[in-house]
């Protein structure tokens, strides 16, 4: 009798679990890091992402009537934890993975084709994933690190010219930080500038005085930073301390958030950073998140979150996923889609000016259209500057050096495929 009851219990539990896996909500897991040295930035990322999808549930009842189930998995920005998170969703029909870390992306990239679940690494991850024919399951809309570095170099060129300039590149010693170095290697002889590298180990993120003594010795004309977490404010403080002119110091889009410069305030005036999204709460999408989520208190974010660089970027990340889900539903005619369907959605969404206006993102981000070949999109970035209390946009969108970036991306993608025997590719029309 006892055995029968246990067997029945197990059978019912299995049935419930299986049903839960296959039907019902649209499962969108997100890897977050609310703890650890990168928590300040990670928390903003997580809040914006979750809040936008929660807003869609609250305002629209989900997407096409199907609720979105957004689940966080804490990684602490550690690759091994990210892999654990990834594995924990196997068999549960996750629509897309959002690793929020280049290191984690590199670990799970090869698993995506096998599990038929796409990976979206918005503005991070492996740059080569921009080449859709080589990476059918990975996307890095709306731009890659290769493209971003060329945009920053174009900005420097517009200010002082690149020829005979000396550029210091300070970066987090990781897959993420090293990603754009090939661009410097290739473009230095072409444009006649020289550069030197300053790797900052994660454990030295808050102890950079040696690095900035080296900067003082080398006397670079420009400094570019690929930092994250506590490394960013520490670097800016160290630059101030060593009297480095902040208007010659440009961070990438992960090194130019409100959380990075807010505590520094007036002293950080002049520091610049790349970005691909505007700040502020005037956009209808942000207003809806405030109305349906933040003011109702169904969020982990405080009122200081909406409108900031990283929070708005995370809203955009979630919105792109939501649009891809909708596109997949429309194309397949199914309301409850799979990871395979989602991949189709990610290659076919259309976020033109009209659609951005409809979604409440007009003016905050550039239009972008999904593509089979191009998993990167427009690739443009603009430069913003810290005015002592907030970020101010100081340039229009700067297109990347497309010919150079595309050539390097193609080469890097081919290299990746040749290093991974049996790599799954696709042919695009």
């Amino acid at each position, binding site marked *: 009798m006892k055995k029968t009851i246990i067997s029945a219990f197990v059978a019912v539990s299995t049935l419930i679990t299986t049903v839960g896996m296959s039907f019902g909500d649209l499962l969108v897991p997100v890897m977050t890091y609310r*703890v650890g040295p990168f*928590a300040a930035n990670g928390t903003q990322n997580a809040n914006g992402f979750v809040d936008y999808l929660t807003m869609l549930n609250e305002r629209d009842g989900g997407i096409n009537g199907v609720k979105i189930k957004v689940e966080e998995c804490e990684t602490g920005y550690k690759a091994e934890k990210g892999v654990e998170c990834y594995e924990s969703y196997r068999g549960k029909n996750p629509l897309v993975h959002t690793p929020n870390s280049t290191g984690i992306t590199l670990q799970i990239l090869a698993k995506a084709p096998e599990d038929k679940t796409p990976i979206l690494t918005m503005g991070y991850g492996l740059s080569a994933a921009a080449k859709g024919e080589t990476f059918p399951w990975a996307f890095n809309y709306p731009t890659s690190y290769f493209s971003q570095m060329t945009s920053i170099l174009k900005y420097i060129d517009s200010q002082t010219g690149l020829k005979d300039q000396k550029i210091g590149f300070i970066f987090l010693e990781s897959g993420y930080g090293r990603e754009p170095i090939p661009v410097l290697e290739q473009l230095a002889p072409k444009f006649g500038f020289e550069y030197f590298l300053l790797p900052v180990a994660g454990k030295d*993120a*808050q102890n950079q005085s*040696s690095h900035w003594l080296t900067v003082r010795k080398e006397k670079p004309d420009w400094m570019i930073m690929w930092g994250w977490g506590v490394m960013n404010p520490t670097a800016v403080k160290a630059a101030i301390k060593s009297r480095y002119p902040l208007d010659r110091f440009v961070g990438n889009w992960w090194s130019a958030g409100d*959380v990075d410069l807010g505590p520094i305030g007036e002293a950080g005036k002049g520091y610049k950073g790349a970005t691909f999204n505007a700040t502020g709460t005037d956009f209808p999408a942000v207003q809806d998140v405030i109305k349906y989520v933040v003011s109702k208190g169904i969020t982990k974010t405080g009122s200081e979150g909406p409108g900031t660089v990283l929070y708005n970027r995370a809203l955009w990340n979630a919105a792109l996923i939501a649009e891809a889900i909708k596109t997949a539903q429309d194309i397949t005619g199914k309301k409850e889609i799979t990871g395979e369907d989602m991949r189709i959605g990610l290659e076919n969404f259309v976020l033109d000016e009209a659609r951005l206006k409809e979604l409440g993102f007009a003016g905050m981000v550039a239009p972008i259209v999904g593509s089979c070949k191009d998993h990167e999109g427009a690739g443009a970035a603009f430069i913003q500057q810290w005015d002592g209390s907030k970020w101010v946009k100081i340039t229009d969108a700067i297109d990347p050096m497309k010919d150079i970036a595309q050539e390097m991306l193609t080469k890097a993608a081919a290299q990746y495929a040749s290093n991974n025997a049996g790599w799954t590719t696709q042919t695009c029309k």
Partner: protein
Amino acid sequence: MDLLTGIFITPFAEMIGLPDLFFQALWDGFVSGTLYGLIALGFVLIFKASGVFNFAQPILVVLAALALISFYKMGVPAWISVVLVLIMFYGLAWLIERLILRKLVNTDGNILFMSTVALSFIIIGAAQWIFGGRPSSMIHKELGIPTGSFEWPMFGGGVYFDLLDISAAVVAVILIVCLGLFFSRTKIGRGLRAVADDHQAALSVGISLNQIWVIVWFVAGVVALVTGIFWGARSDVSFALQIIGFKALPVLIIGGFTSVPGAIVGGLMIGIGEKIFEIYWGPLLGSGVEGWFAYFIALGFLLFKPQGLFGDKIIERV
């Protein structure tokens, strides 16, 4: 040939060519070294009293700094917040003695060490739960610690001095002198030294081991608070700060695990050495040498002078 020039000629030519940069490196190294020494001091105190490497010392630095900021954010005046943190640390020292040390007295050193590892992770978990994971700004201005900087013109250039760094060095020196006097001139201090020499003998002459442990853990907490304030003021206070805490390990190996002056001398050697090496010889090795330089020096000491510069030479009779 280029390599030899890079090792033996270029660095010295750069030192002579840019003397202001050289002095800046010495000063920055001195400040970093003083702060490394402060962290190491916390380790030394507990090692002297219980013969255990306190793995939890770095997280105590983070805990002290976060608690201080939290009390202040709750509306408590800055200096009252300091007092509250000290009271909190006395309570923590008492709890650690009651719940861990008392139960493990006379057990193997490795067991005591592992208990501090466990303690470290418990504190990390509890602190993240209480304070959250976001970095916070230190309240050094509210504590009246001067900020700003001035330039000292030198050899056509200049050396920049931060008032915060000067304050850190001054406070560190005062703290070390006070601790030195405390341990050499007071009854408790002499008790500590007796306990450090021989637990059994100390007990037999009526010294309360439990009381000494509470006091030592409390003093290590005081050192952690001072360290947290100054390191936190230089960057932000986050859990990553504990990683810097482990820089104290090579400092201890160089200075000796049981020596207060050794912690300071070791700290200065590492602080100044890593700056000079990184700037002048780092480019030869692709930069980023600061991360391993301290451990490289420590390995040399382990091979040739394992008790460190000032540590007690351990002689065991067979």
